[in-house]
Every structure is written in structure tokens, then in C-alpha cells.
């Protein structure tokens, strides 16, 4: 399997380990990743707070690059990047005015044809039975709680990813390693990440809100993407 890869800024920076382990995992699964050459930032939550066209143009630049480089499917492991790419694609396909505005900024016509996958989708795409065969060590000692957060499941009509309130796709993935995921109430609750610099207090409080029930289950790890 050969896929386009959009790492996004945080996987190059503060989430470096994530990038490394992901690459190792995919290598084991014989998935080739080719990074989009000269990709730029998706703009994250800052761009859509500033200007609605900029927020679409930044991801659109990457979609066009990928297309030019012959890709038809790209993986975006960071939830924010995934969300911005998916929303942009949806808007450009469905909103004439937005598409025109973005085309003006990019000075290029836009054409669709790009499938955007987040990590959980990618694992399902590869096929859980296929992955299961390659698992070397059972992880039954772990009791993970899966955390989806906001951006994988919302807006549900665009990401089309699982159930908006009670998703289970990530549980299905982790459970092939022999673990039993714990069910908890805050899978899709917001952690406030976009305020991690300006309002650390809010983020601490929101993240703490979620932790206690997860902690009850012994030796819990939290998976997110």
C-alpha cells in the first residue's frame, strides 16, 4: 500500500515520538508513506479564527500539492490537520463561493479527487485482520481508554467518521492487540487544546475533568490521535 503523508507541524515538533512510532508501525505493516513535498501548515484553529478563506486556502494548498504529486489518498495523523483537510475538501466541493475565493487566493483551479484518512480510518482501511496477524506481543495487561476528542468525530456529516456521540472505531483497533478498552463518558469531550498556550488553566481543568473515571480502571492508558 502506498499513501500520501501529511505529517503536520506538531509531528515535526512537540509530537515527534508519535511520528517516529507511527512510521515504525506502518513500516511493519508494509505501508509506504510518501510525504507531500513542500507541505505547509494547515492553519489549525488559528486560521479559522482569523479569516474563513485563509482557513480553507492553507489546507487547499496541500491538497493541490498532493494531487500534483500524483497522490489520491493521504493520511493525516494529527486530528486537527485531518479535520482541516476534510472540512476544506467538503467546503470546496459544496460551496461555490468559498471555492471561487480560495481559487483566487491560490491562483489555481481546484479539483477534487483526494481521500483523506485519519489514523483510525487508516487502520480500518488496511484491515484489522491483516494487522492482527502481524501482532507480536499481546497487550492484555493494558486497559486503554480511547479518546477521540472533537476533531475526529465532528462535524459528523463531514468526517463521516463513526458515531458522533458513542464512537467505537478506535476501540476496535486497540482491541486487536488483546486488550479490553474501558468504556467511559468523555470519549468525544473537548480537552481545550487550542487554549494550551493562552489559557493553560482551562486546559488543565478540562483535561482533569475527564481523567478520574478513566483512572479508576487499573493501569489505564489513554489513546488519542
Amino acid at each position, binding site marked *: 500500500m502506498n499513501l500520501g503523508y501529511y505529517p503536520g507541524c506538531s509531528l515535526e*515538533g512537540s509530537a515527534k515520538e508519535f511520528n517516529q512510532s507511527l512510521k515504525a508501525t506502518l513500516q511493519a505493516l508494509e505501508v509506504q508513506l510518501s510525504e507531500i513535498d513542500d507541505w505547509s501548515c494547515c*492553519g489549525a484553529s488559528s*486560521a479559522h479564527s482569523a*479569516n474563513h478563506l485563509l482557513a480553507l*486556502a492553507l489546507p487547499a494548498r496541500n491538497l493541490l500539492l498532493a494531487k500534483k504529486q500524483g497522490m489520491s489518498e493521504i493520511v493525516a495523523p494529527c486530528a486537527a490537520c485531518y479535520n482541516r483537510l476534510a472540512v476544506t475538501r467538503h467546503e470546496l466541493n459544496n460551496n461555490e463561493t468559498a471555492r471561487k475565493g480560495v481559487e483566487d*487566493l491560490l491562483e489555481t483551479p481546484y479539483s477534487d479527487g483526494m481521500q483523506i484518512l485519519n489514523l483510525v480510518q487508516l487502520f480500518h482501511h488496511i484491515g484489522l485482520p491483516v494487522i492482527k496477524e502481524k501482532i507480536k506481543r499481546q497487550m492484555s495487561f493494558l486497559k486503554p481508554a480511547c479518546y477521540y476528542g472533537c476533531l475526529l468525530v465532528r462535524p459528523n456529516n463531514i468526517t463521516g467518521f463513526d458515531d*458522533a456521540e458513542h464512537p467505537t472505531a478506535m476501540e476496535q483497533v486497540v482491541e486487536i492487540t488483546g486488550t479490553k478498552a474501558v468504556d467511559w463518558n468523555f470519549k468525544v*469531550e473537548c480537552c481545550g487544546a*487550542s487554549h494550551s498556550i493562552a489559557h493553560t488553566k*482551562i486546559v488543565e481543568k478540562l483535561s482533569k475533568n475527564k481523567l478520574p473515571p478513566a483512572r479508576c480502571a487499573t493501569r489505564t492508558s489513554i489513546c488519542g490521535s
Partner: protein
Amino acid sequence: MYAGECYKQIGTSGNTEEMKMHEVHKDPFIEELIAITGQDPAQCYQCGKCSAGCPVREFAEDAPNRVVRYVQLGFYDKALQSNTVWLCAGCQTCSGRCPKDFHLAQFMDAMREMGTKRHIVTKEKKTVAFHESFLDQIKWNGRSHEFGMVLEYKLKTMDLFKDVDLVPGMLSRGKLSILPEKIKDGNSVKKLFKEKE
């Protein structure tokens, strides 16, 4: 006269003389809002479900549905000045559950955009500074550069010493790099900021 003016009259004169509710006209503000979001705030029937599920509700001055209410009534400045607009985390919990399919998170985006354009002064200077610093990195480098962003943010907010103890560790783990990684075709990104400026 839009509906909100009736409210002001009552507030200032202190009497409860007959309140005439007028239809909210599609004035330029609403038209601009519709152009950005594709939806009319009149659609919201003020059920409060958005606020009930909003993660930042307890930190915000106004419930998110109230910000919509202000706009429905024509209190645009009041809406734009509300710290709720800037505290909104963009989580879209509200949009996902709104019974009227009103995309409130997108409405909040538009409020930030329109507030900035109108040079509205908000109490949430830090959040504004964060977004600006973040976007500046993209504009200059094509990608976000955490070190540069934090530096700019700290200069903007004069909040120089918070979290600095984290820096050496992050640097040695390779999580922070002092020099930005620039993309090759930086110009192609820079020109996308045309609309914003």
C-alpha cells in the same frame, strides 16, 4: 430601528412602556455574517443546548447562545466584545447537537474574524496574541514554528517567564528547534494571507 434598541430604551428610561418588537432587518452586519458562514442567526431558537454542552461555558462571561441572541437583537458590539467569542475552543460540540442545525462553532469563527476586522478591543488579549503569533509563523515560514511562536507570544503578552523551565528539556529531546524550518515555496503561502490583511 432593530429590536435591540427597544431593549436600550427600557434600560435607560427604567419604565416598562410597551415594547415594540420589530423584525430584525438583514442589515450589513448580518449580511456579512451570512456571507461568511452561509447561515442566518435568526435560525437559532435559543434553546440553550449549545451552552449546556459547551466545555468553556463556566469560564465564559456569556453563554454561547446569548452571543447569538445579542446578534439577533442587533447588539453587535456586545457580541463581539464578549470573551466567549475568544474562549470558544472550536470543539463543535454545540454544532453537533444543535436541534436547528445551526453551526455555532462556525458562527464563533465569524465573530472572531469580524471583531478583528472592526478592531474590537477584547479582554482576551492573550488568545488573540496566540493566534496572531501562530499565524505569523506560518506566514513567514510556511509552517508553524513553536519556538518562534512562543517567543513572539511572550513578547506580545509580556508574560516572559511562564513555562520557561520546560524549554531546555524540550530542546534536548529535539521537540523544540530554535531555527524555523522554512518551506521551499514560501511565497505561495504568503500570498494566501492577502484576504486576511
